[in-house]
């Protein structure tokens, strides 16, 4: 690896293993480099890469072609239901034409339940024999009704606590993941701001408070521009011992929004754009990079792992359905309304429809050890920094990777 190496994906993460490296590097850096590491602390990890508009990174970055953002099509008129049914039809076609087998990574959350509902609605019982469910006990407790009535006894079940993507691919499956569901609907970063709004109000200056009180709850109102919430956003993103970080982050993202080809209006648009644009790549490739040890990352990204929501039509749908009640109405239990309706149409589970909230399935899973005993510590998932444009994994303990990071962070200047 040399200083000109281009990368597809990078991560500044504080996961216990890499903390020392980033903390040691930090004092040497200028404001730009420090900001990128602080963003890792606040967002943990910092894996932002732009798909539209400016968002500079310290190192040469190219976007993998699979994850480019489609052009905005304001005339796009397919419904979520239609797009989802068509996605299931693609799987149906692959089963009938090529006899391919699929493993759905099922968590019981709304996104992966949409996948299962779509397959159940659109495939015949015979076709569903080519589908297995890869799930853990999290999935059972997260959606007990669906487990009882639609999964258990009806599908072959693979224990996801013992199974990574490479295991599935080696067994001949194409793995289907819903990892990009949040990208289509918005982000938990927004939900946590909405639910802490009153708390943040106590922190803002008293002259701003009445104005912010008056727009409370209007997070999906396109007539209230997100910038009206700036003081609350700054409170939301602030970190200890660095008073300028939140303003820096706000301004850097503002530059991205101002240079993007999609118009951002409401506060929910703002957070949606954060995940739909600069966090999209992370959601798309993290499974192939961190939950896969043997399969080539290139094969996993391009073929082995199917990101259900990465379809062009899902993205187009997402770009023309802001602030109309499809993504969120107001509170956490109205998040992903279009998906809730799609599931309800099948399972008629009014409790799930009315009360399901976003749970941190990813976060929960960290308590499970991966079977990595046979992998050297410095090559385990927690030691991975990213991938280059040849899909080579980059490890944080590799001296050339360290030198690469150091060189680019030292030379990274604030450009916003």
């Amino acid at each position, binding site marked *: 690896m040399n200083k000109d190496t281009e990368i597809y994906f990078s991560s500044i993460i504080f996961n216990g293993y890499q903390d020392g490296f980033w903390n040691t590097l930090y004092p040497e850096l200028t404001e730009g480099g420090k900001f990128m590491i602080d963003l890792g602390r606040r967002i943990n990890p910092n894996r932002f890469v732009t798909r539209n508009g400016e968002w500079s990174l310290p190192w040469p970055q190219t976007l993998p072609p699979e994850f480019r953002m489609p052009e905005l099509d304001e005339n796009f008129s397919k419904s979520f239901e239609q797009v989802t049914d068509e996605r299931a039809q693609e799987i149906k076609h692959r089963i009938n034409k090529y006899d391919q087998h699929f493993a759905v990574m099922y968590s019981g959350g709304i996104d992966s339940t949409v996948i299962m509902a779509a397959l159940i609605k659109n495939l015949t019982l015979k076709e569903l024999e080519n589908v297995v469910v890869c799930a853990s*006990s999290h999935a059972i407790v997260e959606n007990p009704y669906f487990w009882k009535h639609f999964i*258990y006894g009806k599908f072959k079940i693979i224990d996801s606590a013992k199974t990574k993507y490479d295991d599935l691919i080696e067994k001949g499956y194409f793995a289907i993941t819903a990892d990009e569901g949040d990208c289509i609907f918005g982000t938990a970063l927004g939900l946590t701001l909405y639910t802490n709004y009153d708390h943040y109000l106590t922190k803002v200056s008293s002259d701003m408070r009445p104005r912010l009180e008056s727009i409370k709850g209007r997070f999906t109102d396109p007539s209230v521009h997100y910038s009206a919430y700036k003081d609350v956003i700054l409170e939301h993103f602030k970190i200890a011992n660095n008073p300028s970080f939140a303003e820096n982050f706000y301004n850097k993202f503002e530059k991205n929004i101002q240079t993007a080809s999609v118009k951002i209006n409401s506060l929910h648009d703002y957070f949606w754009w954060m995940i739909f644009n600069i966090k999209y790549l992370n959601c798309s490739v993290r499974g192939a990079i961190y939950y896969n040890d043997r399969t080539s990352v290139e094969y996993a990204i391009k073929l082995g792992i199917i990101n259900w929501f990465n379809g062009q039509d899902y993205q187009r749908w997402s770009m023309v359905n802001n602030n109309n009640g499809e993504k969120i109405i107001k509170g956490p239990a109205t998040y992903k309304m279009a998906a809730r309706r799609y599931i309800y149409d099948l399972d008629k589970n009014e409790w799930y429809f009315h009360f399901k909230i976003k749970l941190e399935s990813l976060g929960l899973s960290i*308590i499970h050890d991966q079977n990595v005993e046979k992998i050297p510590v410095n090559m385990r998932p927690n030691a991975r920094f990213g991938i280059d444009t040849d899909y080579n994994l980059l490890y944080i303990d590799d001296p050339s990777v360290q030198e690469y990071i150091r060189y680019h962070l030292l030379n990274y200047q604030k450009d916003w």
Partner: protein
Amino acid sequence: MLKSWLKPLEGIVPAYYPLYFKKINGHAIYLPGVDRFLLADTFDPWITLEVAEILSSKVPTQVILLGEGIPGLSNLTVLEHTIRDKTGLVIHGANILVARQTPLVRKIQGEGSIVNVGWSDDYASPEKRSILLKLQEYGLFCLRICHALKITESMNNIVPHKKYMEDYFPGMVPQDFTVPIDQTEFPQGLGREIKQILYMADSVTDALTQIEKAWLEYSQAIPRIRETFYKIVGIEMPASLSVLALKHNFTVRAV
């Protein structure tokens, strides 16, 4: 007419929670063989029952809830107190239905139903006195450990899935499916294994040594869990535990 469950403060339920009547030390462990109370607690009657279960490896116990008119017991003088009328409790005898090694909860009512009768004559000798005081300290130690376990698990156990699978999903979990009890490496879960130590240990020192050894053996527990546990117990974490490092064999799993 309003359904009973829509009137949560009415009915019999509050009577089983002495703290509801602001009674301090309102649930106690009674030793039928000594005919004295061993200890009393304020916070949670069901943890008192757990402690009575743990102590039952050493001594028959019963849990007594003190009714509204009865003053709470002080742990300084609890060993001098007994129940005046035990005829209704039927805790001695050969009837397996009522005389068992496994404790139950009983509720007693009425002013004067608890009396101070002084130290037990059977335990007056220095040796007997010493063993009874040792038992009391062990009981209070178990009480603190059980509170610490309950609080630690309640605050940290984000995967109590074994309980859920067993209680709510009978016959609906594939064979050999991974079902975590908690996020420690204790094979049967933190709470269960430490209570097993308490059940079998001979003394406070013995129990503390075994608990430290267990934490060391199952060292992958997230440090915060160990820290919370020892903090709530109220003692410093042993040095051997505070230096344990993570193994870094975990990461996020995409779903």
